[in-house]
């Protein structure tokens, strides 16, 4: 695409039940709070009930004409299938984040910056909730995207998760940011 600064594409993928769609909605809502134009789409139907699932978010300073991801700047893949299908789409110098709990075979010849952590395992061990792997991923994302800061993302998370899980999610998010520092 010709004008990169105007359009930033995120592709989140995994399997149904991993909170992929929710993570996409959070990114999109953080974008709105930051006065960006956003488009969020998701695979749905049988797919959202357990099979492969993915969610796309486009963030832009100007109106978004074409509403689908063309060359994602940031790919998050939480399963092997998702990694195989989507990691190679990432733009050179973009980012790929993989969950090695499920991605055993790392994709080859990826030109983007690839990072991998056992997100689900860490979510289980540290927080007792494998489900917050998506929030850890968002913490990582917060440190590696040029548009949305950690505060905006955290506020969007707080607005979306049930209040009694707020603290848990805050910790998961903070841990994701730490991982980014390590990387």
């Amino acid at each position, binding site marked *: 695409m010709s004008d990169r600064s105007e359009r930033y594409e995120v592709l989140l993928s995994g399997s149904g039940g991993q909170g992929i769609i929710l993570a996409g909605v959070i990114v999109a809502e953080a974008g709105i709070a930051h006065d960006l134009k956003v488009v969020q*789409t998701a695979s749905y139907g049988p797919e959202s009930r357990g099979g492969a699932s993915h969610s796309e978010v486009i963030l832009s300073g100007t109106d978004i004409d074409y509403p689908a991801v063309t060359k994602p700047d940031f790919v998050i893949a939480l399963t092997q299938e998702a990694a195989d299908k989507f990691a190679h789409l990432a733009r050179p110098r973009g980012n790929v984040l993989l969950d090695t709990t499920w991605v055993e075979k790392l994709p080859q010849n990826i030109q983007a910056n690839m990072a991998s952590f056992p997100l689900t395992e860490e979510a289980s061990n540290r927080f007792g909730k494998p489900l917050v792997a998506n929030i850890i991923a968002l913490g990582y994302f917060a440190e590696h995207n040029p548009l949305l800061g950690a505060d905006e993302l955290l506020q969007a998370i707080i607005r979306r998760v049930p209040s009694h899980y707020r603290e848990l999610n805050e910790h998961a998010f903070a841990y994701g940011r730490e991982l980014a520092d390590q990387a």
Partner: protein
Amino acid sequence: MSGTKGRTLLLQGNEACAMGAIYAGCRFFGGYPITPSTEIAEHFARKLPTVGGVFIQMEDEIASISSIIGSSLAGVKAMTATSGPGFSLMQENLGLATVLETPIVIVNIMRSGASTGHPTGTGQGDLMQSRWGTHSDHPVVALAPATAQEMFDLTVKAFNIAEKLRVPVILLPEAVVGHIREAVYIPAEGEMEVIDRERPGSYENFLFFKRDTNGVAHPPDLGAGFRPHYTGLTHDESGFFTAVPDRVNAFTVGLNSKMELHREYLTDYCEETVEDADVLLISFGVTARACAHVTRDLRKRGVKAGCFRPRIVWPFPEERLNRIAQHAHTFIVPELNLGQMRLVVQRVVGPEKRVVGINRVDGAMLTLERMQKEVEEVLA
């Protein structure tokens, strides 16, 4: 979109549509579940009871459209939502609503393919059906939203047109628009115009179906004290059946005159850099969003391109297209069908002009890449 009192939310197109309907005063939804429209019904099922409105899941789409006609006849704004297979079943009483001059809104979230087709695929194959699906000559208004915001705005507009002209209005989004999530500005009450049908306080000689100077008849609500008769048979100004040739003629001509008399009101399009364009990209809905992108790319490369997107697809904005067509020599019509709008464009711009389609019918959107490539081929 700098509203002071409204609010901006991340909404799915289908949710925005239901919220637009409620904003416009819709207080009755009768429907039958079908992908990819179901979120609309589900939203209404949660919300309508809280605002004193009626939600009912009917036994099929024939019953669904029938129920909303009943509601509207009784004076309560009503809507249904469906997809191709259900829209096919609704054609019968789409005609009834037309001749009863009953305002209703039908949302047809377009999937892909004929018959049951590809339920989760996106498409634009119902353009012609929305125009000619029910039998005989009849007025039709159809709107094609391209964004979640337009799912809200054009739903309000659909109700306004329905109430003002007393016609059924069709909203024709592709599945992608129904499911896309975007920031949607929900205006505060009173911020956006909401039109209610005219309700005359008296009628001369029981002539409930007499047209005013704008070609619109204003038959009374049921139970309002006038005791009108509504029939799907050809009828005269009294509302009763007539077989007198002049009156039968006046019935059909009168109904259809609404479109002609309100042509300006029913013209709604978006365009970019059309005035000096040699090449025009013409499309509707989400597909047209990609056209805007391609147009800008072409301009950057020095090609005098423009794009044109009707938001009201029926009646088709012929006058405007005709005007901008004078200059252009090539017309590219991308759509998710095998060339339904291309036919209209060719007819409007004339047989001498070069009109080429870019078509995709596999259930997916036209990708930018593919569109760019095919446009290149056309221009080569």
